[in-house]
């Protein structure tokens, strides 16, 4: 009896150490929903990749409203999850508060910056990636008019728009760029009907390439462009496969990388706090080329976009960042 008790205790101790070596990662999505085929899905894919490689399970939560994020983050932190990754600018103030309450927990915030010793902030140079797809749009447009549909009207989305506009103008100085934002609340990320209607509007005005930076709303944009025989550009994840032959390319933002790195750095004890800015140079943003859009990209377009990419990396082309001064050069 004594022996069994002892061995039980030993086993308990062993399993406790095994747990301590493993990490308990958690992931909180933005309000667009986990399977938006875009931003949140990219985050999910990064976490899944980590899971298949290491066998370590993660917990995730899909907030449906702007108020649920803080609760979810605090909930994970108080249950001992570490690291806690929050993707979306919407959780900036939530991370700021909760990170102060749990100084021993590591937090990662994607798309926004919080200056705390236990927070890593990952931001992307979306303007650079958008510049690249803008170049493609400018060259692919036959009417000389291209469109942009944003999700929620926030500086981050204006940053996409501004980079896109600069790229399109670099390809065709006379280009006209229409832009629309879907709304001003979190619901704007999940309103494909309005997205489709705005797209139809821009197509009626002559646009023949429409870039959607709008989470799940973008699905409506891509659908409408395909229905009307026009081109569209996806965002965040590679969305080329959604409507092969109609999606010109996708502005890929490697949110999966941020999540994957956060989990594996925490596992390997290499976690660093501070700001990480991922741009074209770091392959944090870029444009997607695969079998679905190969026929849409001409060799000239390929050459131009490769040159633009090299120029940005070399620093000879500086893409203006909307968020640096809240304005876009015309």
């Amino acid at each position, binding site marked *: 009896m004594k022996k069994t008790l002892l061995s039980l205790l030993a086993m308990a101790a062993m399993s406790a150490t095994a747990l301590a070596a493993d990490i308990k990662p958690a992931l909180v999505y933005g309000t667009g929903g986990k399977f938006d085929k875009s931003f949140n899905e990219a985050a999910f894919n990064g976490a899944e990749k980590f899971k298949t490689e290491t066998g370590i399970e993660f917990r995730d939560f899909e907030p449906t409203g702007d108020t649920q994020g803080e609760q979810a983050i605090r909930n994970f932190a108080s249950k001992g999850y570490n690291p806690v990754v929050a993707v979306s600018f919407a959780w900036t103030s939530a991370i700021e508060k909760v990170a102060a309450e749990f100084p021993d927990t590591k937090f990662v915030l994607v798309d926004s910056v919080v200056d705390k010793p236990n927070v890593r902030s990952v931001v992307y140079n979306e303007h650079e990636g958008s510049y690249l797809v803008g170049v493609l749009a400018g060259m692919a447009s036959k009417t000389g008019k291209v469109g942009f549909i944003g999700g929620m009207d926030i500086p981050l989305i204006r940053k996409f728009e501004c980079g896109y506009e600069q790229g399109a103008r670099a390809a065709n100085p006379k280009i006209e760029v229409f832009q629309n934002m879907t709304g001003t609340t979190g619901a704007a990320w999940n309103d494909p*009907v*309005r997205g489709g*209607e705005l797209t139809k509007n821009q197509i009626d005005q002559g646009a023949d390439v429409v870039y959607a930076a709008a989470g799940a709303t973008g699905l409506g944009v891509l659908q409408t462009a395909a229905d009307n025989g026009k081109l569209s550009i996806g965002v965040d994840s590679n969305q080329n496969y959604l409507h092969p032959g109609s999606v010109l390319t996708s502005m890929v933002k490697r949110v999966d990388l941020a999540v994957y790195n956060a989990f594996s750095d925490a596992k390997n004890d290499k976690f660093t706090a501070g700001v990480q800015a991922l741009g074209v140079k770091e392959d944090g943003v870029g444009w997607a080329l695969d079998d679905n859009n190969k026929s849409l990209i001409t060799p000239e377009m390929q050459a131009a976009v490769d040159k633009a990419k090299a120029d940005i990396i070399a620093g000879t082309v500086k893409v203006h960042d909307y968020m640096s001064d809240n304005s876009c050069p015309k």
Partner: protein
Amino acid sequence: MDYIDIFISILGSTIRLSIPLIFTALAGLFSERSGVFDIGLEGKMLSSAFAAACVAYITGNAWLGLLAGIAISVALSLVHGFASITNRGNQIVSGVAINFVAAGLTIVLGQAWFGQGGRTPQLTASGRFGEIKFPYAAELRDSGYLGKFYADVISGHNILTYMAFAAVPISWWILYRTRFGLRLRAVGENPGAVDTAGISVTWLRYRAVICAGILCGFSGTYLAIAQSAAFIKDMSAGKGYIALAALIFAKWKPVPVMFACLLFGFLDAFANFMQGKSVPGIGEVPVQIFQALPYVLTCILLAGFIGVAHPPKAGGVPYTKER
């Protein structure tokens, strides 16, 4: 692009945005004229959108999707009827309950069946109601404004759009030219008198909510498989409430209902168009102004500035037979 082109483009958009409102407001019309208030329009629309998208995806047939949308919406109407007609429960509470059930259940079931966060998979062309091109639309598009109007506003919509406009005179005819319609209106004004004449108030009201269910089924189906190509969570986005506002704005009459819905649809289309454009002399107008207008107009109407809106007298009151 000149002003008339823009106007035609906005009109086309107006029609597309008004259709779900017209179906839903007509649904509310049938229900409310019989004395059953229906806050649950939103929920019925959402569930039928979900059912239509699921069935259209599985069978690849848009018409079966429509049938499924109607079936689920009628089923919810019967639940509403059972609670508020048979059991004389509070109609508002029952309606709100339907909205909550629909909002939650569609996401949970969608996630369980398709695993895409409550969204249904993207439909192919055969699972959707496609655009119908009228004869000579393409040729006439370039022959002046009338041709363009014909091509972009009258032609080029899906079959449900034309059904919505057909539903307006049909509803008018049913309500004002048939015995059933007369009794339906009477039961909303004075159920006691109808009962005295030996007609079952309960059965009449049940038939009215079934009509409402059928029309809501159309509007949900339109949202999911005609206007979009999948169900997306909360895709009705408050259209059920706007339709209620339109119903009040139109003083519970079928033809004005259509015009009210077109007006609200136009405001929405105009707001989409005006976004980011500056008006000479004023500057950029916030689009929220246009988006809020339907509600503002309804409030002004209710306050009695544009005529007076008389709701059906027996509306919201469960009928209790004297004994």
